[in-house]
């Protein structure tokens, strides 16, 4: 019971989730990080962490690609429409 309460408190704390996602960006595959961040987008308001994480992934591993118009921040640029798309879905959802 106490463990469940602690887990609930931890998962409702945005700072804890931020730290978890940050560690995810360093240690987990990029797609898993973005997937988890997308899930938490529905838990917290204005989850800008999604953009920050994609930016961090770009800074760590990004490289300019000819077929991506030599843009280093390709993932971040893709994360912006994803952010808007998720915002749209969130607005249309009823809990």
């Amino acid at each position, binding site marked *: 019971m106490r463990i469940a309460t602690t887990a609930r408190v931890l998962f409702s704390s945005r700072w804890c989730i931020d730290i978890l996602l940050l*560690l995810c960006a*360093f*240690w*987990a*595959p*990029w*797609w898993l990080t973005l997937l988890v961040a997308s899930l938490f987008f529905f838990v917290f308001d*204005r989850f*800008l962490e999604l*953009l920050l994480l994609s*930016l*961090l*992934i770009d*800074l*760590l*591993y*990004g*490289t300019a*690609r*000819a*077929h*991506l118009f030599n843009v*280093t*921040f*390709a*993932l*971040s*640029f893709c994360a*912006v429409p994803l*952010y*808007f798309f998720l*915002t749209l879905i969130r607005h249309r959802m009823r809990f």
Partner: protein
Amino acid sequence: MNYHLIRSVKSKSKLWGVELPALFLAVVTLFHFFFPSALGGFASKVALPLWGAERSIAEEFSAFLAYFSSKKTLQADVEKLSDELAHAHELLLDRDLLVQENEALKEQFGRTTKKNERIIGAILVAPPRSPYDTAILDIGEQNGVAVGDRVLAGSAVLGLVSKVYTHTSQVEFFSTAGRETPVGILHEGRAIPADAAGQGGGEFTATLPKETEVSVKDSVIMPGLSPLLFAVVESIETTATDSFAHVRFKNPVSIFSLRFLEVERTSVGE
């Protein structure tokens, strides 16, 4: 009395909803444009201890797991590896002899090859963790690594150093999607020129005229006086009506299972 429904109340700060994310990215992109290595350098500095910690935890954990593995399994593993090593020794018996012969022949024709210094680096991050088919090594500017240095695994050339920070460096594999590399496919003593288009994950494709004689398991090399092994032909696809053959080849070593890479310094002595 009229009450506003909660859903009809519009957000006061619309800035957080749409404009701020776009604004933030624009500012960061501009900053990166003027100071290209500042943000990346800072991020890699923060990440280095975390990657180091991950590696040591993984090593400790595998050592802990090995403690529980049975003696029988370990003995079987040792026997299997010993057999493989003995077989590899047999295959390499004439290698040194052939290398010496090759050097002697080159010298006779007045062409000597300069041996570049190689630095070994541990892989901190490898695909598929990174989205761009890149790897991060634990050696950087401090160890003499420079942008453009070749990255190898034994005698197989895998990529180039694309970014260098103080303690780390980023490797871009030739198999990165969208990247084209001029190579030669060795078939019966002839090197057939081709452009290897990276497909990601250590795989490539090349399009050749259908009449070109290429077979499966042919070696693909990087052109040069001392050709380096680039890949091995895996399959050749063509149809009766097609004028071209689509050759698929793969790196001789899997980039997903590597733990170390060698960086060949092109600027020795600097």
